[in-house]
């Protein structure tokens, strides 16, 4: 079985999570080759073949050309699987490659299942589905963090790869992350507001608990998107990554993108009216209650 792994470069650097592709391939016991649109300096620590397309020529983001590069390598390597990370690069490019190769695609794989199946989350991570792609090659995207990062070691044999054509999307540039507001990474206690808190007017109740515990207030993304709190308070893949001694998740369901930012916390308390909410998977304590009833009661008792 052969896997073609698609690495990712951004702003001249190999993205660390590209090593999760090797972790996945090793779990599957597959032979590997990698394609990277990058530069000599972005090569992974890996002794296999790396097909290197020049990022100066093809751009780090140019999906219409990148799909042709993948196709060119697929023709040479004849892999059984073409594997991407499920990231802004991977979910953008993978369906284009699948369409071009007339290949089945399975998105956001979290585990290998028996008989050539793949396990993936569905229903906002609450449930799991096993699916079986029909035909080869198969295009896969992997959920970040589902497979361990593995640095195989060694120096790659580099093969240049090229493709012709024009891209339909013109890349204009990157914009750095806005890093303003509270630095949650240094907080020992974080009490985070989720959509389950109900409305902006309820936030002071949560903030009061944070104050009593001597901590900061965090937020899930919808809370920021709907303007209840500043972007600087957001925890998760597109916000801050935190590891306080105590993290209290108030009305937060536990989407993977949120968990990525807080699962390393020392102790996690979740307050949720839904016993099945995925946050239970990382929590040390799950309080099944209405957050707007429980939090004031807890704060009152702590103040006493």
């Amino acid at each position, binding site marked *: 079985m052969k896997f073609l792994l698609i690495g990712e470069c951004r702003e001249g650097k190999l*993205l660390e999570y590209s090593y999760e592709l090797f972790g996945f391939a090793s779990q599957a016991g597959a032979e590997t080759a990698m394609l990277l649109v990058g530069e000599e300096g972005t090569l992974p620590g890996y002794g296999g073949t790396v097909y290197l397309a020049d990022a100066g020529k093809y751009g780090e*983001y140019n999906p219409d050309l990148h799909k042709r590069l993948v196709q060119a390598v697929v023709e040479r390597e004849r892999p059984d699987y073409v594997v991407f990370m499920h990231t*802004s690069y991977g*979910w*953008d490019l993978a*369906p*284009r490659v*699948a*369409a*071009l190769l007339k290949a*089945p*695609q399975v*998105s*956001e794989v979290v585990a290998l*299942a028996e008989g050539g*199946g793949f396990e993936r*989350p*569905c*229903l*906002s991570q*609450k*449930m*799991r*589905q*096993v*699916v*079986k*792609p029909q035909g080869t090659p198969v295009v896969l995207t992997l959920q970040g963090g589902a497979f361990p990062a593995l640095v195989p070691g060694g120096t790659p044999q580099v093969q240049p790869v090229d493709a012709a054509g024009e891209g*339909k*999307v*013109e890349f204009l*540039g*990157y*914009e750095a*992350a*806005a890093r303003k507001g509270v630095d949650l990474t240094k907080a020992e206690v974080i009490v985070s507001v989720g959509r389950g808190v109900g409305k902006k007017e309820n936030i002071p109740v949560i903030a009061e608990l944070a104050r009593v515990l001597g901590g900061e207030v965090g937020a899930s993304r*919808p809370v*920021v998107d709907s*303007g209840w709190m500043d972007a600087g308070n957001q925890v998760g893949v*597109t*916000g801050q990554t935190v590891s306080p*001694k105590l993290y209290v998740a108030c009305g937060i369901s536990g989407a993977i993108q949120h968990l990525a930012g807080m699962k390393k916390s020392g*102790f996690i*308390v*979740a307050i949720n009216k*839904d*016993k099945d909410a995925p946050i239970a*998977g*990382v*929590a*040390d*304590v*799950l*309080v099944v*209650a209405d957050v707007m*009833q429980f939090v004031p*009661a*807890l704060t009152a*008792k*702590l103040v006493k």
Partner: protein
Amino acid sequence: MKILVCIKQVPDMESRFKPDASGVWFAETDLAFRVNEYDEYAVEQAVLLKEQLGGEPEVTVLSVGADRVVEAIKKGLSMGGDRGVHVQDAAAHLKDSWQVASIIAAYAVGEGFDLILTGLQSQDRGSAQVGVTIAELLDYACATTAVGFEYADGTVTVKRELEGGVKGTVRLKTPAVVTCQLGLNQPRYPTLPNIMKAKKKEVRVIPVAELLHQEQRVAPVEFRAPARKGSAVVLEGELADQVDRLIGILKDKTAVLR
């Protein structure tokens, strides 16, 4: 200008899900359905663009699914869509993302849409495939994960959200597909008069058999709850008792309470 917005109806994510008789997907009994969250941003963006261009563009709201999805189409119309298309398919949930995209592309191919907006992903299945695949099938330019959108003279400038808060700006010419990420705009709540108006708007019904010409590429084999990873202590019951038990645990297990 013609704009198409693809919306999917999904179950309320706070529901309890149980496998149906097939064992490969969830049973619909007792579930409430709503518009896929990401697709509300797509509808809002279409309506904002229509307003920006003085009402000239025509906004079509399309959904593939059983008769219940007409509710979702009506919501799109009450937010400001002009007309609806219901691709009637009682077994839409059995199609893979590829088939759903091919159905939508087969409808769109003769319609000459300048812009097609979809969600980044659905909340139930979440493949993040349908929008991009439609673009590939129609040979349209495509940008995903939009958190910023500007349009002028046939050019769309999209701010794409990347990891860690970084964004990437891209420019594409219509015809184009853009997939919308959470936070792109503030989806409006339909007003009562607009809900009434929406009732009168046309919803064209197309049987799926007229548009489906592709075989399934991914077959479902199992549907279940994830293995419980954590060993969370679950506190249920009386509020006062829950409070006391939590404080007890925090004193015991963390150095936070003195």
